[in-house]
């Protein structure tokens, strides 16, 4: 009993993490305070990182925690703290599109879930079990996808310039 449990510990943990991530996501919809929403999101991301780790792609798991939780969400939390002081929480939580939105999302999940359920797992499982680490990833990144890699730097520079421009425009408008 214990042995078999240990044997399937990976899978079990995976399921638990998946359930937790989903709960975190759903909480994001329900919680009123943005800060709490952010916390729910962070937890979801951490659980996802755990899933990645369980799958064996440790470097993605590391990136997930470092970039998403460490950079993006910290930034987010900072902004929430900046704005929350001035903004009252008295506004409505949901827009007028709750009902149609839920219905459409249900249909969406139904349609995609149908695909997942009746999909072609046989095909997906074809090369199952082949692990790869940061080694292969780095090699393929810097040989096969070097152009994309370089383009990301362009994108980042563009984003920085755009952010600066946005701030400047608003300063001029209010200055």
């Amino acid at each position: 009993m214990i042995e078999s449990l240990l044997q399937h510990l990976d899978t079990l943990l995976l399921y638990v993490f998946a359930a937790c991530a989903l709960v975190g996501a759903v909480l994001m919809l329900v919680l009123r305070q943005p800060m709490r929403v952010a916390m729910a999101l962070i937890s979801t991301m951490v659980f996802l990182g755990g899933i990645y780790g369980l799958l064996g792609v440790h470097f993605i798991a590391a990136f997930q925690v470092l970039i998403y939780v460490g950079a993006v969400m910290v930034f987010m939390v900072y902004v929430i703290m900046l704005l929350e002081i001035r903004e009252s929480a008295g506004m409505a939580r949901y827009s007028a599109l709750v009902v149609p939105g839920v219905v459409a999302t249900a249909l969406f999940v139904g349609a995609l879930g149908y695909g997942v359920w009746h999909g072609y797992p046989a095909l997906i499982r074809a090369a199952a079990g082949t692990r790869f680490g940061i080694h292969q990833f780095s090699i393929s990144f810097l040989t096969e996808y070097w152009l994309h890699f370089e383009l990301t730097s362009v994108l980042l520079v563009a984003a920085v310039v755009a952010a600066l421009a946005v701030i400047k425009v608003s300063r001029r408008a209010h200055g």
Partner: protein
Amino acid sequence: MKHALTLIVLLPLVGFLLNGFLATRFGGNRVGKGFVTALACGLPIAAFLLTVACLVRLQEAGYQPLVDTAYTWALIGGRSFEIAFYFDRLTAVMTLIVTGVGSLIHVYSAGYMKEDESYARYFAYLNLFLFFMLLLVLGRSLLVLFVGWEGVGLASYLLIGFWFEDPEKAAAGKKAFIVNRIGDAGFLLGMFLLYQTVGTLDMDRINAAFNGATLPAVSASLVGILLFIGATGKSAQIPLYVWLPDAMAGPTPVSALIHAATMVTAGVYLVARLSGIYLHAPEASALVAGIGAATAFFAATIALVQTDIKKVLAYSTVSQLGLMFVALGVGAYGVAIFHVTTHAFFKACLFLGAGSVIHALSGEQDILKMGGLARKIPVTFVTFAIATAAIAGIPPLAGFFSKDEILWFSFASARGGSTFLWLVASAASLMTSFYMFRLLWLTFFGASRMSHEVEHHVHESPLSMTGVLAVLALLSAVGGFLALPHFLEPMLPLPAVVPALHHHERTLIGIAIALAFTGLAAAVFLYGGGARRAAALRGRFPLAHGLLLGKYFVDEAYDFLVSRPLLWLSDRVFLRLGDRVLLDGTLNGLAAWAQRTAGSLSRIQTGNLQLYAFLALAGVVAALVWTWAHV
């Protein structure tokens, strides 16, 4: 000189390009008149000399045709369309006429157009015409011939409308161009038919195919008639002759070169060149002869009463071209080319003489306002008189020989000659003699009817003009001794003569001479003594005179029968119904519909971001559902 033939064709083009780009207002007037004159006259003369050299070579080669392939235009499925030039006896004659008479007229123009401000443009156009005309006569393939055919039409249009500031002259140019297009439709159809059945457009090969053991699987008459429709346009035959009299709006040397000596004979050349087809097309030949005879007759009747010196000559040209087609129709192709040659000499001389008269009278063209010019401009008078006698058929001048042969073959040819044809042609011939001497008398004899001011300025033309007139008069006088039909006979054999009619030949010559002198006598009788008798005659037959003066009202009839219905159709059906209602209506309706639907759809754009997101979501869901349902 391997490419001598190409060089002949290209020389005038060089003149056109240089003069057109350097000396006109378009090119910034970079060079002076001396350069223009030297270039424009020198290059045709060079082409003429080259042609003579080619003729010598042709003779040395035992009259084996010279072929010069300049360029392969297109290769389509193994068949090549080449720009090749072909030089045989017929081409030699035509090229000599085109370059020879062309050169003379260029020299003449240097004097005639001296005062014109568009001097260089004129010569550029004239050289362009020469280029296309040489392309036409030297081209081996019908395709090259057609390029030249259209090109001379273009040059003709440009030169008729040379003084385009005058709307009437510009309209005359357009008329010539449009009427020619109608003929070209037939030409093109004939060409397509030939290509489909014979598989080549090279004219020597087409002739060979029709002379071979098995005839091509096409009605020779149908091809012949279609090509003849093209010829009626270019060579001003019934029913498409209406443009030629109006073409006199151009400068007079142009009328001499294009609308008398060379371009209008292109139709004659075409039929003679493709004689292989017409030999197997008795119906088409009969049509050619019939149309030719009718044109010769009706144009001559119109010429009887015209008072504009150039209009008389224009109708005379139409009439003479009719006679050439009579010769073609009865199978005497060499004789037709002979008449083309002599006609080029004397008609060029007449037109240039008329130009000299107009020049002397400061632009006056009405022969009723001339008279008594013989003493004042003697050189013009003498040359004009010689050319008049030549066209009238007074022996032994050029016109006598060629016209006599036409009359003889129209009577006796075994290929469709008949007494009726001869009668019509003879009547035309008689009228030719009459109206030409009438023209001569009204212009040069009798009392002067000029206004005082005009009379004061009358002067003989400069040497460049009178010299050319003298050369052409000389050619008109002796051109009949060239014996061209004999020269062309190995290529274009003369038709057999009905044996029973053989003994009539001398009688007919006698009649022809008698007709020429009858015309002369009648003209002198009517117009000799102050034209009182002519006035009396006119008073007795006012209706006939009005009909002839109105040129049978053919232009009006065409206007009423063709132009107006077309205009009505274009305006009412195509413009108002087709364009405005159907096309514009459809488009406007579609645009309005799009605007309406877009207007109603734009109401969705509330500016609410979440609605947009929701619509995107709905779209994705719909796409997914559809995909699952269909894939």
